[in-house]
């Protein structure tokens, strides 16, 4: 076939093709380094395309190889830069593209943490405990720990408040979002697998087919109606939590985004309903909108009153039989602790599970002495630290059991 460049001499094209083919292996290698999943089959197809005349013009070759080697949007976007760098030797631009392009460590966290999480199921109290990670190492502290492990993995065990530079914070945010996404996929997948089991409804089939003399012509099927797990998140945005709020917001955004059964509330001295802001697709914009809602935070925490508002105005609407309420707070109550206890009891009657995440529970030597926590704990099903990415991921198996 004479695809293109008809006015050129064929010998010339052949010459170009053979030159290009020789360097193709090197190009494939470069692409692999940049995180592309290209194998032998792609290489052969590329050679076939080159033989068919696609190497006649650089733009054409670039376009052809781009379709062939890209597998996703991120590949698609960075391909042109890599191609230009390799074939057309535009060096400066290429460096930037190639280094930024390394494939991110493929979610290192989930598998390894699944086992660690919830081994101490029923402790002495009625409250489940996730082993607290007292010994969370100081991220930058020991140089030895950095060896051989990617930074992304190291971040998993660092307490959120110890993140110093903006870059690290950004990494943690990205990791939290990734973690949330993985958790969401797994939680929903379980749900779908369960929904799969439809079976024949024999009784209805026979009844429907009486008119056919009992021969089952129209089959009636039965499908289990399943309520998906609904997460309701109540996030404390008061001053004492300020170190953690941003990471949690990012995590919660990851969990809620497109998770159709989820609601989010923010509280400090008042309770604010923030689901619509949280369902914003773009994390940055969601956080912007939330920070507006969170203004006026920092003056103290009235958990009891906020819960009372929740119970009175929102609970009936957002809680159903397969709901889990997740409260993220340090439990420093500046209002009436008796009220907090009463409202927690009311909430516990209503929903399936209450998870209380307290970032400070992960600190060495922390004991739940705050009056708020003491009042609330008897009604909480799971009390977990959640001050590191690792402790967040340990939540997943618990949620999956609900």
């Amino acid at each position, binding site marked *: *076939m004479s695809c293109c460049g008809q006015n050129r001499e064929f010998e010339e094209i052949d010459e170009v093709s053979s030159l290009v083919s020789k360097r193709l292996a090197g190009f494939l290698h470069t692409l692999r380094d940049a995180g592309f*999943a290209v194998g032998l089959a792609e290489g052969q*197809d590329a050679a*076939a395309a080159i033989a068919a005349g696609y190497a006649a013009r650089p733009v054409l070759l670039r*376009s052809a190889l781009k*379709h062939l080697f890209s597998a996703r949007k991120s590949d698609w976007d960075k391909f042109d830069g890599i191609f230009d760098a390799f074939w057309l030797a535009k060096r400066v631009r290429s460096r930037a593209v190639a280094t930024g392009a390394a494939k991110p460590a493929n979610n290192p966290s989930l598998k390894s943490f699944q086992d660690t999480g919830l081994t101490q199921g029923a402790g002495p109290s009625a409250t489940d405990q996730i082993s607290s990670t007292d010994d969370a190492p100081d991220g930058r502290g020991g140089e030895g720990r950095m060896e051989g492990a990617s930074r992304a993995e190291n971040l998993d065990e660092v307490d959120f408040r110890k993140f110093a530079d903006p870059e690290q914070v950004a990494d943690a945010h990205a990791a939290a979002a990734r973690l949330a996404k993985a958790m969401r996929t797994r939680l929903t997948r379980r749900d779908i697998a369960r929904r799969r089991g439809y079976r024949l409804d024999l009784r209805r089939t026979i009844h429907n087919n009486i008119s056919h003399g009992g021969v089952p012509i129209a089959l009636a099927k039965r499908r289990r109606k399943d309520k998906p797990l609904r997460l309701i998140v109540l996030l404390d945005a008061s001053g004492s939590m300020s170190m953690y709020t941003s990471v949690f917001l990012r995590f919660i955004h990851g969990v809620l985004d497109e998770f159709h059964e989820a609601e989010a509330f923010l509280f400090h001295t008042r309770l604010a309903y923030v689901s619509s802001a949280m369902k914003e697709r773009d994390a940055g914009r969601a956080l912007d909108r939330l920070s507006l809602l969170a203004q006026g935070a920092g003056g103290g925490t009235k958990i009891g009153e906020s819960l009372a508002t929740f119970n009175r105005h929102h609970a009936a609407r957002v809680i159903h039989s397969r709901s889990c309420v997740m409260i993220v707070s340090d439990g420093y109550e500046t209002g009436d602790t008796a009220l907090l206890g009463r409202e927690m009891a009311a909430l516990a009657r209503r929903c399936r599970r209450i998870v209380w995440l307290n970032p400070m529970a992960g600190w060495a030597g922390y004991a739940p002495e705050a009056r708020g926590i003491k009042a609330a704990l008897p009604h909480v099903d799971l009390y977990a630290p959640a001050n590191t990415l690792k402790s967040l991921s340990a939540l997943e198996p618990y949620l999956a059991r609900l």
Partner: protein
Amino acid sequence: MKNRDEIAQALASSGYIADSELVTAISLMQLLKRPLLLEGQAGVGKTEVAKALAFVHATELIRLQCYEGLDQSSALYEWNYQRQLLAIQARHGKDADAIEDQIFSERYLLERPLLAAIRRQQPPVLLIDEIDRADDEFEAFLLELLSDFQVSIPELGTIAATTVPHVVLTSNGTRELSDALRRRCLYHYVDYPDIDREGRIIMARIDGASASLSLQIARMVHGIRKEELRKVPGVAETLDWAAALVGLDVHDLHDVPELVHETLMCLVKTQEDRSRLTRQVSDRLLGKVA
């Protein structure tokens, strides 16, 4: 097999205004016999690509719309149980083996899109729409079909493809597709068209849209896409809006700023976005339209 120029011409005459990248993709599809995976935001015209491709090859378009819970019986084939039961009753008392042979024959087989696509005399375009909505298992099954192009039906044996269809898959990215499927396919990212191309699309699709009006509309839509909207208007919305404006006998957007603002409902479809695009915003955007 068509060369690039012929493809570009055929696309143009089908009313699909393609960029040169897409022409390359389509010619590569023929050369390498690989499926084409299209990704992109909703409303950028992914499905239109398949329709245009069917036009280019002057062939039939077979469409399989994916959804959660899609299974083989609605995608590949199913036995016509009702007919089978009737056949059994009609031949009551005859030899059981003969009846069995008969009811498991082609006459009682219901073709679904995938089986239909590999049994045509002329290779059709098979559009597997929104593959990301289907389940993982279905994706794995599809992968097998796309590499072997044969189907095995236990009662009937293996059916090999008479022709290999041109396969186009689209995805909106609601779920991450498997690497295996991605590697099987050529990849093309469909982006919102640039101003010039969108203008030409409007001209080609809407009767009575003048060149200057089309370009104005394209510029305006381009500006609106840059506003922070929850639902960014796609090409289909642009066409709706252009049709509305032409229907209202508008020749220049600057003449009728209030009408422009009122008809924006063709473009933005949520209350929230509607309230964000106030008269001030629409006037400001209109001001930027040359």
